[in-house]
């Protein structure tokens, strides 16, 4: 008997000891480019932010299903005054080197994100300062009421103050200086993973953080990221089994990937909307056949351009089904969106012709039309198709397509008459879009991508009210009103929300997210 129980005991111990080894799972994934830096307050880059979230935690983080901010390093928060919010920190959280997380680290990190060399100031707008109340409590003091504070905090990750000071990384890596900082290539956070190795453009290896505070559904113990620039090679790497997951399979390979026995493709709507903007400011458009006036200032002309676009055929033919046609400038996950604003004006080329004639252009006109050719899914093809659609109502668009490095500076110099833009909403709140795209160009982010210089008094009033309105139902009504106003005045011509496919082995469980990033808590390798 003694012998038997000893054996059972030994077996149990062996099983326990062997358990971690049995469950060691590596998740290999790839996409086109590398992260720019490991410094979490340096460059605001979508891919980088997604990877940083594996290594660093923020006070709150989006739930991947509902896209509501939920507790992460903060367990609770409450408003003391409309401009002062108090956060209670999670007890017992440790950085991956074993040192405890304190209020000092939070104050330090948020202040670091607000510094001059940080590109995360878009997420600190409205925050005046952060102060420590006690070891596990901090207060955020705002310049005014700030209804999107929690959304902003999802992108403000927390690093160790002591570590940053010891390694001379107190300031975010500044691209203006000659030297790199320690935090650019190294990391110390409280997240699920720690950095084992990063060779830019080659390999980023993350391993499980032994001191991680939380429990997750994920069984991944190692993440290997390899950027592969060539689309064909990226897909080949998945087909040959060298990687488990690719974030950005090329549209032409999807049919093949879907039909493969070992692979699966999951699609989801990205919270990025593709639309056209129009110059509504100049009195005469350069390169247009119309002299002495700007036809795009006329609502009837903008409506005609809108209603002559056959969004069904764009969806079916050009996008091969990978789009969700929309009538507004934000995607369904974004606060302020409603079924009503989503509805497009009907496709009506005859009506469009009539509108043009009413506006005084029965023969149509010539207009400059600019598009990027390597930024959005099938961007150039969309513009070519639309050029053909417009020609049917007599609008002769002179299409020029440019690579994004020259395209964006060009439209920011207001040189395009009609231009394409895609707008994602990291805060999941329409203010982000309305303020940048439809508010009259001004200070502090107002109209910073209102490249057509649309200007509407009512819109400015609505946007400025939303900025400070903290009564949620009222605020939501205002958001919807802003979107509706943008639709009614055709501030932009909305096309569609992008649908993003992810391709992976059948053995991978992943939850598609509207911000096109992986949720590391939910990844499973079976």
């Amino acid at each position, binding site marked *: 008997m003694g012998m038997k129980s000893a054996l059972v005991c030994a077996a149990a111990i062996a099983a326990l000891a062997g358990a971690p080894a049995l469950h060691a799972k590596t998740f290999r994934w790839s996409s086109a480019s590398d992260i720019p830096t490991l410094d979490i307050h340096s460059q605001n880059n979508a891919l980088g932010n997604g990877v940083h979230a594996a290594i660093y935690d923020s006070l709150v983080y989006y739930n991947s299903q509902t896209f509501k901010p939920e507790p992460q390093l903060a367990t609770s928060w409450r408003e003391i005054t409309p401009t002062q919010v108090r956060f209670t920190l999670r007890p017992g959280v440790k950085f991956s080197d074993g040192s405890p997380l304190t209020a000092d680290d939070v104050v330090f990190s948020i202040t670091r994100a607000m510094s001059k060399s940080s590109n995360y100031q878009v997420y600190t707008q409205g925050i005046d300062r952060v102060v420590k109340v006690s070891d596990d409590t901090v207060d955020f003091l705002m310049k005014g009421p700030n209804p999107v504070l929690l959304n902003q905090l999802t992108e403000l990750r927390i690093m160790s103050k002591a570590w940053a000071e010891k390694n001379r990384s107190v300031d975010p890596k500044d691209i203006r200086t000659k030297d790199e900082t320690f935090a650019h290539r190294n990391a110390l956070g409280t997240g699920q993973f720690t950095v084992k190795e990063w060779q830019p453009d080659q390999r980023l290896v993350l391993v499980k953080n032994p001191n991680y505070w939380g429990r997750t559904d994920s069984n991944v113990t190692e993440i290997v990221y390899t950027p592969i620039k060539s689309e064909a090679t990226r897909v080949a790497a998945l087909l040959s089994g060298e990687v488990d997951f690719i974030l950005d399979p090329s549209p032409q390979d999807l049919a093949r990937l879907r039909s493969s026995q070992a692979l699966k493709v999951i699609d989801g709507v990205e919270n990025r909307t593709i639309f056209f903007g129009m110059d509504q400011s100049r009195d005469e458009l350069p390169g247009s056949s119309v002299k002495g006036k700007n036809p795009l200032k006329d609502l009837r002309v903008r409506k005609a351009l809108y209603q002559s676009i056959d969004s069904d055929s764009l969806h079916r033919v050009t996008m091969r089904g990978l789009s969700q046609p929309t009538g507004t400038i934000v995607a369904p996950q974004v606060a302020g969106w409603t079924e009503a604003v989503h509805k497009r004006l009907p496709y009506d080329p005859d009506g469009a012709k009539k509108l043009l004639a009413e506006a005084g252009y029965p023969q149509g006109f010539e207009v400059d039309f600019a598009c990027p050719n390597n930024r959005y899914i099938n961007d150039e093809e969309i513009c070519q198709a639309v050029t053909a659609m417009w020609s049917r109502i007599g609008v002769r668009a002179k299409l020029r397509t440019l690579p994004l*490095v020259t395209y964006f500076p060009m439209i920011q110099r207001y040189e395009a008459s009609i231009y394409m833009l895609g707008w994602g909403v990291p805060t999941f709140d329409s203010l982000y879009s309305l303020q940048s795209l439809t508010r009259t160009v001004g200070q502090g982010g107002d109209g910073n991508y209102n490249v057509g210089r649309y200007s509407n008094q009512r819109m400015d009033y609505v946007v400025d009210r939303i900025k400070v309105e903290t009564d949620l139902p009222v605020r939501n009504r205002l958001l919807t009103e802003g979107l509706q106003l943008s639709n009614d005045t055709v501030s932009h011509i909305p096309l569609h929300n992008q649908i993003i496919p992810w391709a992976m082995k059948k053995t991978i469980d992943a939850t598609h997210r509207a911000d096109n990033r992986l949720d590391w808590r939910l990844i499973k390798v079976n």
Partner: protein
Amino acid sequence: MFAFILRRLLQAVVVMVAVAFIAFLLFQYVGDPVVFLLGQDAKPEDIRQLRSDLGLDQPFFVQFWHFLVNAVQGEFGLSLRQGAKVSRLIAERFPATLELAFVAAFLALAIGIPMGVYAALRRGTVMSQVFMTLSLLGVSLPTFLIGILLILVFAVHLGWFPSFGRGETVQLGWWTTGLLKAKGWHHITLPAITLAIFQLTLIMRLVRAEMLEVLRTDYVKFARARGLSDRAIHFGHALKNTLVPVMTITGLQLGGLIAFAIITETVFQWPGMGLLFIQAVTFADIPVMAAYLCLIALIFVVINLVVDLLYFAVDPRLRVGGGRGH
């Protein structure tokens, strides 16, 4: 001799400055890295501020002068995309490119020369016809297509070789090498073949043509008359003389291999300088692009210089003429 070298060096400097100038001129039109750096939400005033901090708003010649002064000291500043020193980036990538180029050159020589010799000696046989047809294919197929085809067959279908990357590397001082491990050879095979194919066909055709030429010369006829064996004539006399121009071309092509590995490196995600360059172009990363172009120009200038000097050493006629000939 001394005057010759000096003149050559002077020419080299002129070429380098000209290349630097053209490179820099091009970048004025490539685009603006600032929007990338600041992201889509940047305020116009921040963009203006960063442009002036980076010196991008200064007149062209001022920027060019700063660039030249720094470049002479080997200082190309910080990569705008990666935030790392350009000199460090290039030093990290150089071994990968060099190893790839050398393995490809070796393959091209080791296969190209025998094929060329065979095609010349056995002119008209089926085998040499096949070689000639294949070589036409090799010259005309674009590199990326060859690369993708190799990946499709050997990585996806057969699963013999990996489709991307360099595998593990070993650190030898400042040099990293993948050639000391089986896995490294595993990774280098497909890209090296891809890169070698064009050179291989070129060398094969060159060897064949030269060999045919040499076989017609008088000394080969005399050798035959003396009753030497075919073997001795072909490999002792003819091949030796054939290889002189082949060596010259190979030397120059090595520069080409290093410089134009861009496509191969992109297809195979080979972490060399070509990949670094192409990604710099996508991001308008001016310091990296400028440094890369200057480095490639330098490689070509040095190789040409060495080839010139070798001629000088090999061909006594040049020395007699005081180095003026040639």
